[in-house]
């Protein structure tokens, strides 16, 4: 495991708050400023989402953020520049999340080398399941990047064992069936799945999808999650037309602080 990721999971006293931003939303410079706000508010890990034109795993909030970023000129070269800039300012783990075609188009080994050179610790590819994972995992490990894989409520026990054997960094637990987006309630199946996965692996287990409120974080903390991934609830605050950027950043910082308190780490 990357030393920054394993270090982060080792030294904690409650689930880590993994905060997501969409690279280049609303602009390259603002992404750097937003990262600073999140780090200042205590974000434990930042997941930088590289937008793709056809994000089938994402709901409207992240879709729209991605469209804004692409319209503002975001591309894969700039993604690595952004990771490099953020890395200059912090020692917390940085993840890249994207879709298969972004990686494939650059060349799978080259993508992971570039990610490592820029200072990323893990890469998550939303549409690469176990069946397609080999070239991605191999290139990741060669570059010293953790290949992060998913388990879902629809993953069979036999399949889960094969995924856990291949996964690195942590296990991304898909906490809601469907796409990313805000949810009111947290599903009992997700809590049940979390308990089952925890029994099967020594890797940290981190739910994501739909985690929107400090109360959700508290429930996952109680169930033993090693971290929680917060995406749409934060990304939603960006691009609220009419709200000054500083206030948007402030709102994101406040949510991270509240979630950290619920995680018992405030």
């Amino acid at each position, binding site marked *: 495991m990357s030393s920054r990721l394993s270090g982060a999971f080792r030294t904690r006293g409650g689930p880590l708050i993994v905060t997501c931003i969409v690279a280049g939303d609303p602009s390259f410079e603002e992404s750097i400023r937003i990262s600073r706000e999140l780090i200042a508010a205590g974000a434990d890990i930042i997941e930088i989402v590289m937008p793709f034109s*056809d994000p089938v*795993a994402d709901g409207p909030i992240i879709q729209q953020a991605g469209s804004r970023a692409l319209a503002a000129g975001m591309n894969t*070269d700039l993604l690595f520049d952004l990771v490099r800039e953020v890395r200059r300012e912090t020692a917390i783990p940085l993840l890249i999340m994207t879709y298969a075609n972004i990686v494939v188009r*650059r060349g799978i080994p080259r993508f992971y080398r570039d990610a490592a050179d820029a200072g990323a610790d893990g890469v998550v590819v939303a*549409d690469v399941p176990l*069946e397609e994972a080999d070239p991605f995992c191999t290139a990741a490990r060669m570059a010293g990047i953790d290949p992060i894989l998913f388990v*879902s*409520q629809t*993953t069979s026990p036999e399949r889960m064992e094969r995924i856990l054997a291949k996964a690195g960094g942590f296990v991304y637990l898909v906490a809601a069936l469907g796409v990313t987006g805000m949810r009111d309630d947290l599903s009992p199946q997700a809590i049940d799945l979390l308990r089952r996965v925890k029994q099967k692996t020594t890797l940290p287990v981190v739910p994501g999808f739909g985690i929107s409120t400090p109360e959700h974080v508290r429930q996952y903390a109680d169930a033993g999650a090693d971290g929680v991934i917060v995406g749409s609830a934060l990304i939603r605050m960006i691009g609220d037309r009419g709200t000054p950027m500083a206030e948007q950043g402030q709102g994101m910082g406040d949510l991270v602080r509240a979630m950290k308190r619920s995680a018992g780490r405030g």
Partner: protein
Amino acid sequence: MSRFGEYGGQFVPESLMYALDELDAAYRTIVPSEEFREEMGYYLSEYAGRPTPLTFCRNMSADLGCKVYLKREDLLHSGAHKLNNALGQALLTQFMGKRRIIAETGAGQHGVASAIAGAALGLSVEVYMGEEDMQRQALNVARMEMLGATVIPVHSGSRTLKDAINEALRDWVANVQDTHYLIGSVVGPHPFPSLVRDFQTVIGQEIREQVMAKEGRLPDVMVACVGGGSNAIGMFSPFLDDPVELFGAEAGGEGLAGRHGATLCGGTPGVLHGSYTYLIQDAFGQVLESHSISAGLDYPGVGPEHSFLCDEKRVTYQAVTDTEAVDSFLYLSRTEGIIPALESAHAVALARRIARDREKEDILIINLSGRGDKDVAQVAALIKEGP
């Protein structure tokens, strides 16, 4: 076998693998079963009107200087080949014990076919359709609603077929347990490209019997249009090992230097909608908007088996522009009294190009994948505007 050479695969979120595994099992066990084949046989012959004729075209043959036949999928119930696949997958849905179907549609032909199959088999049908396509194909929107289906407008992205597939996939991830995604072409993750091909192969099988009966030999050349590629692969499949020249007509739009939908002629390999296949994309892997006058060919991807057949040079793919397609739309209407779908008009245009170098005795078969009623208003407006 989830790949055609290096193309195909299953690039989907983990939550969908459950549904794909379930579908793959159904594809391997239910589809070949006696019971399923009997039911399918009933629906195809009694209900849909198969076999469709293989029409010898006297006027076109005289004009083009070789023997020209049309495979008349335009005469299939619903007016296009899409019903072969829609009935097959709807029946499979019933056998799998699911009650809800979702589908995407571009031209609306697949949406109509899904609505028909759903009505016939008692399944609820929801169809995702890009906002722009809903305007271009208003007649088909009305038909779907008439048939009891719900049409859901898609506002994201380019608001055409590609985005309708994205929305259908998102719906499916959220509802995998009770819903079947009835995909309309030989695209998407495995097993869809194989499953849809198998349901469309009836086109090629009939052609084989019909041409043997009429001519006593196999054809020399066959031509089909390629959007996702289902009517083409259905026609080509039974002939892949025979000495028959195969041609696919892609949507050349404004020409390959401008906006187009000719994925194999002008694209590069990448991953879209669950498959590794040729795409129209930029240097960073962002998929670009395609363009075609025909909504059914307006797609920046193509079925993975076509990518394989293209690399292998087993099938020759050529681009046909919007202007050529409209010209052949009118040509077929006036020469033979058959109004083709704008999609199929691309195949007619490519056939006219190819026919130039043929001998008088050569047999050329065009897959007339659909009829043109849905396009009449659009073409009439174009003619009025003038060139």
